[in-house]
């Protein structure tokens, strides 16, 4: 029992690893700051694209979305990071992560946002268009804000998934929180740093998860 405690909850090791892990947390937050807005933007583009007039364009986009949803994000990341240099494109780890996450997230956010757009009644479009607003102005000022609000729980849930997925960036040696914790683990031969990272993830995401279930309950009423 004591050995287990020493192996997983060693406060001494935790406090020594803390500075390194906090550095990693900074990188994790930086990745989030890049990939979440990019993903939402990509999602909006996918949602708009799926309303395209051309059936061919819609088909092509649906295929691309299916592909991204079927492909494990880790595979996508490795392909981009180690595959693109063969095409003469050297990418920084952050750039590779940004592209991979953009492609993956755009597909998922796209589905969520499309459902949101479909939930806005046609009368909103008609009212706005009948005052002379163009279709793009109507979308930006009238439809999109309501669409995002209508699917807010799903949007936040998806964002939680994205935050968790940022740990994948460690495979391209981006020193985010899990990478740092794992490094501390191999230096100390002790699992406590990883437990500490887990606790930090939990403290960050638990309130968000609570908010989601609150919102879901509120909209179910």
């Amino acid at each position, binding site marked *: 029992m004591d050995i287990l405690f020493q192996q997983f909850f060693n406060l001494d090791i935790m406090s020594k690893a803390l500075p390194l892990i906090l550095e990693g947390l900074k990188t994790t937050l930086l990745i989030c700051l890049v990939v979440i807005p990019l993903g939402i933007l990509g999602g909006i583009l996918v949602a708009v694209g799926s309303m395209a007039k051309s059936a061919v364009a819609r088909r092509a986009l649906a295929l691309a979305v299916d592909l991204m949803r079927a492909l494990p994000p880790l595979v996508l990341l490795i392909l981009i990071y180690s595959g693109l240099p063969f095409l003469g494109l050297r990418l920084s780890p952050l750039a590779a992560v940004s592209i991979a996450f953009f492609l993956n997230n755009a597909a998922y956010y796209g589905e969520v946002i499309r459902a949101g757009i479909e939930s806005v009644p046609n009368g*909103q479009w008609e*009212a*706005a268009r009948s005052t*002379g*607003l163009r279709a793009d102005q109507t979308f930006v*000022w009238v439809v999109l804000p309501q669409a995002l609000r209508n699917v807010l729980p799903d949007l936040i849930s998806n964002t939680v998934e994205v935050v968790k997925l940022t740990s994948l960036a460690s495979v391209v040696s981006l020193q985010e929180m899990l990478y740092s914790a794992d490094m501390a683990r191999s230096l100390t031969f002790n699992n406590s740093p990883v437990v500490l990272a887990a606790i930090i993830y939990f403290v960050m995401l638990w309130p968000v998860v609570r908010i989601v279930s609150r919102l879901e309950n509120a909209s179910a009423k």
Partner: protein
Amino acid sequence: MQSAASFLPSRAPGAAAEIQSVEPLLRIRDVSKKFGSLEVLKSINVDVSPGELVFLIGPSGSGKSTLLRCCNRLEEATSGSIRFDGSEVLDPKLDVNALRRRIGMVFQSFNLYPHMTALSNVTLALRKVLGKSGPESKTIAMAALERVGLAHKASAYPAELSGGQQQRVAIARGLALEPKMMLFDEPTSALDPELVGSVLATMRSMREAGMTMLVVSHEMRFAREAADRVVFMEGGVVVEQGPPAQIFGPDAQPRTRAFVSNEDR
């Protein structure tokens, strides 16, 4: 100083003759509309002169909404001509957004933007369509809300307003753009009976201010007392049109009489 009247060519007196000579603001000619193989408008002819309040009545499914929606191109007429204020509405090259600035529309279900205050509902088009500054559009919007008696609700959200208040904000949203004409599609049908009066009062004051209006409605009492002309449609055709006294009188055509007496209950 010369009076305006002395510029007019002298001719036989009679207000009716003068109204007749005014070019209609809206001139619907032989308009037909098909949804697939379903012909819902069959060669419709209706004129609306400046300042007129024209009522469009008829049973559900007779094509009233479709006709209104063809006038601002929410729906595309299949054939015919709609002239509005000097331009051909059905011209494929027409700038529809410019057209819609000059024709307001009020819907049965209000369709206010739920994420915006009453004021922002009104200012949106002023800013994005007319390109007015924030302060200027606010001044115009407040004046429009004042006209519908809701300046004190400017910062309320639609969900905080009664149906009648929401519909009046929707009217203000149209009025603020200073359109030459307003289209109403059953503006009071979604309202509780006790709220209908406030919307009708607003429409009456618009009429007194000289607004040209084409109104689809089942408010027969209002039609009788406020309309200049009533158009009765059934099955996609105009069965009869004339002043309220004719349409609601004993000499109306049998189909008109049957509809009107049924509506009056």
